[in-house]
């Protein structure tokens, strides 16, 4: 019971943080591209790298959730 709850909380809390972070980063990137369309390619590459870093933290939560589910 506790383990299942922990698995759910691990992935959901990690998802909240990652979602907020990705929203901020993506929104700012779109703003930058809309303001200066000629730097679109550079901004897109940087956005991908940033999103990958943010996503990693969420994936750590997912990994912990899988490990906890594997323990049940």
């Amino acid at each position: 019971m506790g383990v299942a709850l922990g698995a759910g909380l691990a992935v959901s809390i990690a998802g909240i943080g990652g979602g907020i972070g990705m929203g901020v980063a993506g929104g700012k990137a779109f703003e930058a591209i809309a303001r200066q369309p000629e730097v679109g390619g550079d901004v897109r590459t940087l956005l991908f790298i940033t999103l990958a870093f943010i996503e990693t933290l969420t994936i750590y939560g997912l990994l912990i959730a899988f490990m906890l589910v594997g323990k049940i």
Partner: protein
Amino acid sequence: MLFGMLDGVFFHLGPIPVDHIIVTEWVIIALIGLIAYFATRDMQMVPRGLQNAFEMIIIWTYDFFTQLMDKEHVAKKWAPLLTAFFLFILLSNYSGLLPGAAGISGYQPPTSNWNITLTLAMITFFSVHIAGFAEHGGHYLGHFVSPSWAMLPLNLVEELAHPLSLTVRLFGNIFGEEMVIAFLLFMAPFIVPGAIMGLSLLLGAIQAIVFTILSASYIAAATGEGH
């Protein structure tokens, strides 16, 4: 073995069990190799067909990595490895979406096993330091004590966190996606998993691009000026 489901072992090669994952990898490597062989078998000055497509890929990737790394000779040296990463990861991610793949027991795409992604990340890890030493020689070690000696432990932890995050990102994404599809197939066998499968076509490509770009930016950081 936590995440490496070892059922469906075909035969043993010495101490190594050859299972679905290794056979899938062999098929992917053979596929890329065969296409590359047929593309370059009868090369012409004015390319057509397959050779044309491959020359387009090569030029596009060289341009992209040159722009990312700022140094053309470094980009030329490492672009083949990075492009190979991209093609291999892309085909591995997509191999889980083949029709009928879910019906084979023990089948999973190679990148959804953390042994495979750790291997790819270790190749990146060693490539980064080899690239750094090849570019700067002994001065490369100064990179670890910048801006001061007090930062040495933090820099070392950062270097070790790179392969860990590369491993976990690729493996977690593909494994999670496979789990979601398996769960949906179990809940609603028709139509509903199609939506997630369409999404995972996009995800597989993005993860391949992200792994390649991050490897390229680690190499760029190791070979760049500024330390």
